[in-house]
């Protein structure tokens, strides 16, 4: 009997070992956008490779093609990605169309608690239907749209005096959207160090999501809501409220008054270029880029500082960031889950932040000295407290393209009024929700 038990134990341990060996042989592919944090993740994942024996491959797609490429991959049931760090807006489609593995059982088995992550990120990146305890992703990269500016210009005594003379106010980080425009107007076409400078670089891109992500920064600050009641799809009066109209008119004026010439189709790259080349005094972009901006030898360091999207009626920022999901079509789901388990560890999350990724783990965000760990860390915390996201419905792509069209038509192409743009947007969205059977 003892002999049999020993044999069984030996067989089981051998099987376990072989299983572990088999797991070590896995080649995992993680898909994400090609940007600075992705490079940090490659560095971070080397530890996972060393610990687990798995090999990590990466498929990074440039942002303008990221959604197209990845959504096509998911829709076709492709096996390219075992792990996908997908945009927050994809969570509805990922869940409802069966692209993402539901992670509840896994989290429970591995003692991974969503309470350990910032609530806003769990809500935005992980849950579907929104706010319910159904998790399809682990918050991987917290992000929001923020601002940065030329601190050296803002501190220059001559410039400060000129600003005071022109506006009667101190030149400082803007505390409202209107103040931001006032500062932008002041810098527009101003000669500094013998060169013509401009006010701001903002998002105006038409093809993917740019102008929507930019303009919602103003819309949310004015108190924009997608629905009168959450989940009702009742949009009239919310989407086209007087505040929304005012916000859109503001964004158009900001584009017209204060951007560099030819700034009609600009998103992340163009915003970074405009700032790094010294063209603009202020720029909007995702927090994800801030470590790189701070490290820039020409315009970083003591020449740059950061601020949260200024409030107008309310304090709010446009949400960026992503959660990490296991793709349902992957043949290597066990190894992929192993990666998520490893990634969720507090010490890995701490290293993630150190390398330039934006951890959403409470142990990092609430850790001692987090706010002082980087010049933008405090702003990041403030921003994440007031983030709002676009629709996360399965039909998000249609909803987004409609908004891209209506906003670009009004803001850049100067067609119609803000009221008409928002009214038409409601018509477009109503049609989409009718097709979806939700209206």
């Amino acid at each position: 009997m003892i002999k049999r038990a020993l044999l069984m134990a030996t067989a089981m341990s051998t099987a376990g070992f072989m299983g572990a060996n088999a797991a070590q042989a896995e080649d995992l592919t993680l898909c994400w956008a090609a940007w600075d944090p992705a490079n940090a993740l490659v560095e971070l994942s080397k530890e996972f490779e060393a610990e687990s024996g798995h090999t990590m491959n990466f498929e990074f797609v440039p942002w303008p093609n990221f959604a197209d490429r990845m959504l096509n991959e998911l829709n076709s049931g492709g096996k390219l990605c075992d792990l996908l760090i997908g945009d927050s807006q994809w969570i509805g489609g990922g869940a409802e169309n069966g692209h993402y593995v539901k992670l509840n059982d896994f989290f429970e088995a591995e003692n991974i608690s969503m309470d350990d992550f910032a609530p806003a990120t769990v809500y935005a990146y992980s849950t579907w239907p929104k706010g319910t305890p159904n998790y399809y992703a682990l918050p991987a990269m917290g992000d929001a749209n923020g601002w940065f500016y030329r601190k050296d210009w803002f501190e220059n005594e001559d410039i400060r005096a000129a600003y005071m003379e022109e506006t009667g106010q101190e030149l400082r980080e803007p505390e409202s959207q209107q103040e931001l425009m006032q500062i932008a107007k002041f810098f527009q076409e101003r000669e500094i160090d013998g060169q013509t400078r401009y006010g701001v670089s903002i998002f105006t891109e038409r093809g993917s999501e740019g102008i929507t992500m930019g303009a919602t920064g103003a819309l949310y600050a004015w108190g924009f809501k997608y629905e009168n009641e959450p989940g009702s799809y009742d949009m009239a009066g919310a989407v086209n409220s007087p505040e929304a109209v005012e916000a859109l008119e503001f964004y158009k004026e900001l584009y017209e008054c204060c951007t560099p010439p030819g700034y009609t189709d600009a998103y992340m790259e163009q915003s970074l270029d405009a700032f790094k080349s010294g063209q603009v005094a202020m720029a909007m972009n995702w927090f994800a880029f801030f470590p790189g901006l701070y490290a820039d030898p020409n315009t970083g360091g003591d020449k740059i500082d950061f601020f949260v999207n200024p409030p107008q009626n309310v304090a709010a920022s446009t949400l960026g960031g992503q959660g990490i999901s296991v793709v349902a079509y992957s043949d290597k789901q066990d190894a992929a889950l192993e990666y998520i388990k490893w990634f969720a560890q507090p010490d890995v999350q701490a290293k993630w932040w150190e390398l330039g990724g934006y951890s959403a783990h409470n142990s990092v965000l609430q850790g001692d000295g987090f706010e002082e760990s980087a010049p933008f860390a405090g702003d990041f915390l403030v921003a994440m407290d007031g983030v709002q996201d676009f629709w996360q419905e399965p039909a998000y792509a249609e909803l987004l393209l409609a908004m891209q069209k209506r906003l670009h038509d009004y803001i850049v192409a100067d067609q119609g009024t803000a009221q008409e743009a928002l009214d038409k947007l409601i018509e477009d969205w109503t049609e989409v929700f009718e097709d979806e059977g939700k209206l």
Partner: protein
Amino acid sequence: MTDTAIDKIAQRTPTRVARKVRGLSDRAIAWLFVGPTIFLLLAINIFPLIWTVYLSFTNFRANRPNREVEWVGLRNYERILTDSDIWLNMQATAHFLFWTIVFQVLIGFALAYLINKKFRGNDLWTTIIVLPMMLSPAVVGNFWTFLYQPQIGLFNYIIAFFIGADPSSFEMIGSVTLAPWSIVIVDTWMWTPFVMLICLAGLRSIPDYIYEAAEIDRASKWRQFWTITVPMVLPFLMLAVLFRGIENFKMFDLVVQLTGGGPGSITELASINLKREAFEKWRTGYSSAYAIILFVTVFGLASIYVKALNKVKER
């Protein structure tokens, strides 16, 4: 291969096979050769076309294969034909089509007329002129976005030099007024050489003795141009218009690279809009109807045009 070699292969063919082949009629052998091509044609062209027609009457979405497909009748067609935004896309397409053809025909013919004259460096100039059409549309679109850049773009500097304005005072691809012309200019730059080559073929096909006879009759150069050159080149020109018309009706890559359909939707041609509906919004049924409407339009216009072309040829 020599006859002897063929004979050797024939000898090696198993008798059973040889008998079977010998037993086939000419018609059967013809089908044997044509069959695979017909099968491929049906599989690659005809079946997708029929399938597209079917899909155009449904609410199918390729990104939701599990969703129930409903028969929606003519609703997709009705939506498209009553959508004012789509008519704006059609207008943008018509503007692009009309002006690119006008400019390419005029400039292409003029260049062909000049190149047809014998002068030193003729071959070199022909090669230089045809260079643009050898480039990839994506590359052309990309570098013209730099040329059109208001702050550093060469195009703006050249125009500003002539009109005495500041180069950054106008935006070719960012302005609602200028953007439709910016895509016309680039397409004309790229494809005029194609029209030129076709016209050149037409000009070189005119026998010299016709001009010699006209000279003897003391016809002026002007009269020779209008009564000999133009009528004899006209079928070639019409062919060039047909090719360019079909190509530009489905223009996509160049314009996407250049303006992305913007600003707003000012340069969003029908093909760009169709791509967005089909592969970004994934409204497969709706975009199938859209594609059928475009197909019928092109097919109808091309048929009428080909009839006119044949009439001109018969003259």
